[in-house]
């Protein structure tokens, strides 16, 4: 009998490298869709309002934000369309925070699957992001309605919207993957995340506009938070008076990219022990 290992489709050995197999990930896209569908369906089962919740959240946050920060604290500044700017900020922020939370919890929520079935573990955080994107799409619908009501037509810049949404997801996946992998072992992480998100809400330009509120000498430092570029970019895409300066943008992008790549690597490194420690 001749030794023809090539004939075996599946060779199982000690882990070497990071085992990142893009082709395999692609082959699992149906699983990703099924998991995302599961969480969307399950989330709004036995609720009266169903998907309407995806509308209520951003609208309520926009209303509150405009009222508290705009009127009470006078953060609305010279921007004429403060409420629209807040809505844009809130939408991206919700996308980011939902991605991050979903990502971190995804392994623990799917612990049973991790212990019992093989599939590329990256599918779990990815499906959490897909779920958040659906809510985000509903939010963009709300945004369109509000823009129409304010008789504010979008410019060609609006075509870059998907880009900023993707960037928000990537910005969330970076820390999300790090924390998800850590959370598999140390459940403390789960308790840190809401706290991080609360802090993030204030150090990101959700309820204020960067160009109006942050001194230009501080902006490069401020841009170390990747969500700064994401929110500014998103606003730039829909508001004619929004400004997007290149240096902070580049810094934010670089930070997001470093976090994302290192996050994927760390996650892949840790995933070999997920089934044993989770």
């Amino acid at each position: 009998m001749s030794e023809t290992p090539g004939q075996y489709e599946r060779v199982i050995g000690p882990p070497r490298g990071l085992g990142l197999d893009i082709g395999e990930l692609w082959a699992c896209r149906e699983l990703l869709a099924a998991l995302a569908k599961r969480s969307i369906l399950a989330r709004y089962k036995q609720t009266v309002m169903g998907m309407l919740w995806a509308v209520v959240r951003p609208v309520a946050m926009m209303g509150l934000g405009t009222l508290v920060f705009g009127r009470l604290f006078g953060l609305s500044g010279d921007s004429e369309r403060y409420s629209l700017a807040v809505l844009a900020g809130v939408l991206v922020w919700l996308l980011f925070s939902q991605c991050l939370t979903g990502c971190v919890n995804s392994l623990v929520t799917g612990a049973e699957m991790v212990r019992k079935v093989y599939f590329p573990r990256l599918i779990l955080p990815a499906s959490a992001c897909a779920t958040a994107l659906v809510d985000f799409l509903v939010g963009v619908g709300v945004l369109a309605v509000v823009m129409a009501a304010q008789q504010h037509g979008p410019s060609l810049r609006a075509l870059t919207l998907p880009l900023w949404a993707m960037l928000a997801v990537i910005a969330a996946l970076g820390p999300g993957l790090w924390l998800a992998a850590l959370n598999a072992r140390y459940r403390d992480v789960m308790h840190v995340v809401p706290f991080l998100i609360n802090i993030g809400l204030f150090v990101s330009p959700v309820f204020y506009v960067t160009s109006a509120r942050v001194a230009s000498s501080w902006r490069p430092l401020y841009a170390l938070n990747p969500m700064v570029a994401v929110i500014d970019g998103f606003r730039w895409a829909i508001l004619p008076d929004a400004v997007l300066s290149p240096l902070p943008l580049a810094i934010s992008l670089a930070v997001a990219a470093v976090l994302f790549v290192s996050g994927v690597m760390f996650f892949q490194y840790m995933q070999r022990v997920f089934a044993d420690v989770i």
Partner: protein
Amino acid sequence: MSQPMIRVEGLGKRYRIGHKRPTADGLRHVIADAVTRPFRRRIELEDLWALRDVTFDVAEGEVLGVIGRNGAGKSTLLKVLSRITPPTEGVARLRGRVGSLLEVGTGFHPELTGRENVYLNGAILGMRRREIAVRFDEIVAFAEIEKFLDMPVKRYSSGMYVRLAFAIAAHLQPEILLVDEVLAVGDVRFQKKCLGKMGEVARGGRTVLFVSHNMSAVRLLCDRAVWLEGGRAAHLGEAGATVDAYLRTAEQEAQEGPVRWPVFDKSEQIGITNLRASVAAGEGGSSRLEIDVAVRSRRPMTNIGVGVLLTNRCGIVVAELGPAVTNFVIERIDGQAHCAFRCEGIDRYLIGGEYIVGIWLARPRVEYLVRIDHAAVVTVPLRDVYGSGVNLDQQHGVVPLPVTFAIREP
């Protein structure tokens, strides 16, 4: 001869176990650990080889049994072969799609309907949407849940739930099927279905790896078997021979009382602290089987099933008293509980000789918590059932059937 479907060479899986490590290792412990480390001697890490130097081939269409006591590495072997956890050394090569009946119902979401769960679970098991759509009606018919398709599975009875889950797994049609009978808790009918499906798969020329505690099933269904002991293959060969070798050792050890009580579950929350099994003289000259089990829990728990297994010398399970069947459960436990199994007139039901007593704790129909198949040995007295002067023993069968004999006039 064609290439084997599964080729396992020198497979090993090591777990690092730190002593005095808290079971709940939160970040706090890690930080506390890091702070105090310089002032302490280093924590001794112990290597635990759950699997070591395991080598075997499985040919196409062959059914290989995997036997061994708990913790011998059987489940780890399946986990490695299904790629859930990577091996530490060695290599396993497989041809074709691997399916397993150990992941029945994985990923089921209670809020979703039966229909939604079929697609979801199918995707988790690696089926394409199209594939599921083609087999959808077949799956539903097999599970006998047509009427409840659009009801959330949280409203299903546990029987319906298991049937649906099993139906999906059974229709995966893999080239290699991994079956862990230990995990296939459920009612007897379900277990039979499980075994039936396995036989069908094997007859269809596909390859099966069958982990079981049921020696007669292994003898019956498997061509060859491997006996794992402490992570190593203690015996590999024809199924009957492997089972015999295993049983000889198991019986010997059970007699010597190798089980050191207490035995706790994985989470160290509940366990058996003592077991006493004997056959005593009962009423009217008959014998009484007495099994006393002391159970201890470290926190309040409810609905803990207690099961007993009696195996004869040929490895035939003569009685499997599972909580799903008997409803012998401890409804509430917080601390100690004593369970007493009694069978009056055991010698009327069982032929004389030695029997191996197994014991387990379980969440009925969900999972085993502790399972020891060879916990003790009891001896049922030999009896001259037919008044012929011959005492029957296990050479003469399993039950002392009280048969009468008469010659009738034509």
